[in-house]
């Protein structure tokens, strides 16, 4: 009563919600300055498996799935923003939140599926890096896998990965050459535009496998965990949410622009000449219009850079997941001695990935199917993330607004639809060659 009276007298400030207090209107200059760490996450999204997937999609179905990339861009941005927001509001990583909100029965399979997909992707990425070294040196890819895995495991466990990743990002910038390659390959821009704006669906297992892999490599489950854990490690908080949203959007736009260019370049060079991708050298041919005889070198350097950036992210996000489930100390900023289990999981992930890479036969197939697995588990995690971020109890004033909910649920729907279609196609017609 007294408070109401004081309000009438104007003594109490009108109640402003927490969201209003943290909202910032950013100038263009501030937006440009805000973009930074999100580019690393965006760079990690285009790992060797992603590059292989985009190249295969381009070579197999041409520009036909460009519309999926356009469609998935706002979805990817919104999902990454939700991952960052839920961590900044609850000060808790994703695996812990899943366990404390939904219980171990839901959290454990959801997290473990992500871990399995990560380890397979790591194995596939190691293979791709080995293939890239083979392109550069002529020494068979299989001989590169063990030393590569060992060096990366040591760096991830004992060195400051955050500092290192800032330098590695420059290697991934090599893939910006795909943007130039896309122009120099002289595609039919009318067809590119039409396929980007008008959805085309062909009812074949090839098409739907490609679609699921493309969505799985774009809306990648490990990135949700990585994003949330990054917010916790940096202790960013809710006051910087507007800046984070800009940063995330910039990173994801860059990631999908690169993906789009890879598809256009491979579509123009390989699909139009009916060339299938069976080896890394085939995939590198898409860069020939830009780099001529140096296409292989450029492609190899890019794949190696992408692998060096993404493999530690995959291992760490798997470990963040397991440690969150078990309630262990975790964080890449910690000494191995102060978070032993966290680092043991990273080491084990590297060992298993190495074993998978050594025993696998076809690197390109392994890369592609690891992304299909990501695509199959992505909708489950997207739905759980949506439930978390739509809970007023958990998020308070930072609960999802209508646009976020619509885009988030649309993402879940599209992912489920693609998964159902691929399962149906494979069940009735078998796996494509």
């Amino acid at each position, binding site marked *: 009563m007294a408070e109401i009276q004081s309000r009438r007298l104007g003594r109490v400030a009108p109640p402003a919600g*927490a969201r209003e207090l943290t909202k910032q209107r950013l100038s263009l200059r501030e937006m440009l300055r805000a973009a930074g760490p999100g580019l690393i996450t965006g760079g990690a999204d285009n790992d060797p498996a992603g590059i292989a997937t985009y190249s295969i999609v381009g070579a197999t179905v041409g520009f036909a799935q460009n519309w999926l990339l356009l469609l998935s861009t706002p979805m990817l941005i919104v999902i990454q923003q939700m991952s960052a927001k839920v961590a900044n509001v*609850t000060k808790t990583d994703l695996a812990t939140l899943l366990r*404390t909100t939904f219980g171990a029965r839901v959290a454990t399979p959801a997290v473990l599926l992500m871990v399995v997909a990560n380890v397979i992707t790591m194995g596939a990425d190691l293979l791709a890096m080995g293939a890239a070294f083979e392109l550069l040196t002529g020494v068979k890819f299989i001989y590169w896998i063990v030393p590569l895995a060992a060096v990366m495991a040591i760096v991830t466990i004992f060195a400051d990965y955050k500092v290192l990743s800032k330098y590695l990002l420059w290697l991934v910038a090599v893939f910006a050459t795909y943007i130039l390659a896309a122009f120099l390959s002289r595609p039919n821009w009318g067809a590119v535009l039409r396929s980007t704006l008008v959805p085309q669906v062909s009812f074949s297992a090839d098409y739907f496998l490609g679609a699921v892999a493309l969505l799985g490599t774009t809306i990648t489950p490990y990135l949700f965990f990585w994003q949330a854990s990054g917010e916790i490690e940096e202790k*960013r*908080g809710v006051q910087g949410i507007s800046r984070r949203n800009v940063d995330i959007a910039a990173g994801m736009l860059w990631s999908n622009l690169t993906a789009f260019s890879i598809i256009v370049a491979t579509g123009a060079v390989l699909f139009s000449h009916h060339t299938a991708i069976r080896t890394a050298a085939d995939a590198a041919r898409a860069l020939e219009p830009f780099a001529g005889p140096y296409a292989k070198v450029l492609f190899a350097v890019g794949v190696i850079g992408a692998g060096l950036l993404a493999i530690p992210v995959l291992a760490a996000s798997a470990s963040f997941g397991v440690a969150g489930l078990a309630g262990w100390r975790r964080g890449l900023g910690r000494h191995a001695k102060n978070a032993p289990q966290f680092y043991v999981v990273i080491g084990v992930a590297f060992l298993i990935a190495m074993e998978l890479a050594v025993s696998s036969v076809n690197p390109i197939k392994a890369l592609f199917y690891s992304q299909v697995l990501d695509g199959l588990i992505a909708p489950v995690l997207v739905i759980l993330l949506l439930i978390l971020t739509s809970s007023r*109890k958990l998020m308070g004033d930072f609960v999802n607004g209508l646009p976020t909910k619509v885009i988030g649920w649309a993402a879940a729907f599209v992912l489920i639809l693609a998964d159902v279609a691929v399962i149906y196609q494979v069940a009735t017609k078998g796996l494509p060659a």
Partner: protein
Amino acid sequence: MKGEQPPDAVAIDAWWNAIMAGGVDEAHPVHGDDLKISIRHGVLRLVGTMPTEDDKRELLGTARKYIGHGIDKVDARRLKVFKRKEKPGILEQTLVADFANRDVAEIARRHLVDIRRLKAAQIEILDRSNEEKKRRLVPVDFVGNVEKAIEAGEAVLVLRVDETEAFRVREMLAEDTRSRWTVITPPTPIATVKSDG
């Protein structure tokens, strides 16, 4: 009792002793993993971020006391003071951590306040003896969690802290004090009364 050291000073002394004995991987009792130390060729290297200039000064002052007693030089070129973009005093969050009983919760409270130098707007232990306070201290959505714990004979530590501190407190509750579970309420504006002038 004269000359007895406060608990944080005792813990820091013990930590320095461990460092000088070669245990450079030990986490600092106050700053935890934000500080990393190495000793090589007589040079003690401090790397990391301190929350304030005072913390940095205090750490450097203590480190320099060991010159001539195991080290020759202190290198603090990579010891920075954390430049916080977020402003304190705007939002706050309430954390509720569950412990086996009041005694364990009290040990946790003492660790947070006396060793980790936590400054909370409110810090209170709730159990069967004072459970009537729960509706005043705990936001309504989380009263159920507290009721369940108290009914089971457990005790909860309820802390209200600035939002900019909440990450650190959440981590300390889960990792240092090993709470059974910790929940955190969404950020809310810190109530401020404007003067009419």
